[in-house]
């Protein structure tokens, strides 16, 4: 039986882990869009943790975090550039599976570093062709600064100071370690597991917990770095410079935490997210054909062990299969299961 009961602060402060999941690679009806990441909170809100689409967040006081998760993303049509929902070809079955290896390390009281490395499998079946490919995806490295020295989660609001939220300011870089259209040895779009460009993100998380409820808002702004391209799918082409459009991600979530008798905790959260990418550039000229957007909703749950070292998590991110919920982007469902281990 689940009961909600107050705990001492010292115990509750241990709940603040919140790795937010491996973000999602939304591939085009195959892998061609891989790397257009859409956040999936793999761990629901918990005390003073936080996260973004592209990183793991350590709880206050913890030194290491190891994270492993599996994403299963299935495709169900797409939005065209007018925002209209269009079905995938009848008889097609398009999926992408990702194993995400994550690690976070606290190198100062309020500073932490994290890395996420995905292994991606594309599984695309059309009536006339099918392809399965496995390769690394793009790697994310992040640095976060916590603007607070003490845990800001409270059970009651007694003073104005109790309303202070936990604010995280971070920066991430996406390394093109995946197979892109410009990589050596990539023959077709089914083999693509990365976007082939570096991207720098500025991230912000604001979170407030007044038990048992947590409110969380996240945002990030990313800029791709221009790069030269001299081959496409192993075919030499006239060299040109390519840059994808700036990326904006916003999400908001609300969570509720239950505490079991033996101090285990179960957190359930609901979130809404919006991802947009602007026009890219080819040789300095605007390329509006790469613009896209996607809105999604998600449900997440996390079970935390009594000693707060182990977390089991699951989430479901759902893109609404209706007009105007996206543009030039696949409509997908993403199921994530994962486990995290925290070392203090």
């Amino acid at each position, binding site marked *: 039986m689940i009961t909600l009961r107050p705990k001492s602060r010292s115990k509750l402060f241990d709940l603040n882990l919140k790795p937010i999941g491996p973000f999602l690679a939304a591939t085009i*009806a195959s892998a061609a869009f891989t790397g257009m990441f859409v956040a999936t909170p793999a761990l629901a809100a918990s005390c003073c943790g936080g996260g973004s689409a592209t990183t793991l967040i350590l709880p206050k006081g913890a030194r290491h975090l190891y994270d492993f998760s599996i994403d299963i993303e299935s495709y169900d049509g797409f939005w065209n550039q007018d925002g209209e929902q269009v079905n995938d070809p009848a008889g097609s079955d398009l999926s992408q599976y990702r194993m995400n290896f994550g690690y976070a390390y606290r190198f100062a009281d309020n500073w932490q570093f994290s890395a996420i490395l995905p292994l991606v499998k594309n599984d695309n079946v059309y*009536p*006339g*062709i099918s392809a399965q490919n496995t390769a690394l995806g793009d790697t994310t490295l992040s640095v976060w600064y916590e603007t607070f020295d003490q845990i800001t989660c409270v059970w009651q609001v007694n003073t104005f100071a109790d309303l202070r939220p936990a604010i995280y300011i971070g920066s991430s870089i996406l390394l093109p370690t995946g197979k892109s259209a410009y*990589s050596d040895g990539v023959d077709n779009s089914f083999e693509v597991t990365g976007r082939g460009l570096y991207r720098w993100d500025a991230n912000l998380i604001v979170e407030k917990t007044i038990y048992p409820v947590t409110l969380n808002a996240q945002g990030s702004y990313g800029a791709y770095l221009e*790069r030269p391209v001299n081959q496409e799918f192993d075919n030499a082409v006239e060299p040109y410079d390519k840059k994808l459009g700036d990326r904006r991600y916003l999400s908001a979530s609300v969570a509720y935490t239950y505490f079991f008798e033996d101090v285990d905790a179960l957190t359930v959260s609901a979130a809404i997210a919006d991802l947009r990418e602007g026009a890219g550039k080819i040789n300095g000229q605007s390329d509006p054909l790469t613009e896209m957007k996607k809105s999604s909703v998600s449900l997440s749950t996390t079970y935390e062990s009594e000693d707060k070292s182990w977390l089991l998590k699951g989430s479901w991110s759902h893109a609404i299969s209706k007009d105007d919920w996206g543009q030039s982007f696949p409509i997908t469902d993403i199921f994530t299961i994962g486990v995290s281990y925290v070392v203090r």
Partner: protein
Amino acid sequence: MLFDNLLRRKNRKSARYTSGSRMYKIFTLITATLLALSLQGCKEDLFPSDKDNRTETIITTVDFVATTTLDEVIDLDALLAEYDAVVLYYTMWCPLCDTHMSYITSAIMPNYPQTAFLMVDYVSGSVSQSRRSQVENGYQALTVIADSDQSLLDQFHATMATTVVISQDKLVLLNEDFKNGARLIDTLNTLGSQ
């Protein structure tokens, strides 16, 4: 005594190998291995080059015969007898393909009436399925080839969004990703087929 000391030291050392440190080693090993593999597989992306690796040779293609989604048989020779050039665009009915096809239809095709534009569907597997995808995506007005056996895919070493321009003398003037369409327009302009 010496043995006891060694045993105590060994036990202390063992105690230090907590589950956390074991996890650390495992993760470090996995991460290092994957990173090492990734660096081998994606050098071109991590350290991109602007070196022009194209050869001077312009490829000449052979004739092909294909079936459209209206069950019409077309062949390259006949098309080139009627048009200045033939453009092939490879689609898998994806969001990016839709964006490209929409742009080709609205911004490129009207300016090149002496060019034949053919969309190549290499994923549907049959004429009927290809036609259904064409209609559902709103491109009834375009000529779509049902490349059910992927013969055109293989002939031009193509993939999603590959764009091919073939001149009247069967030279392959362009064979690359569509991108923003500028290369296609430049190539068609050199043919003077407006």
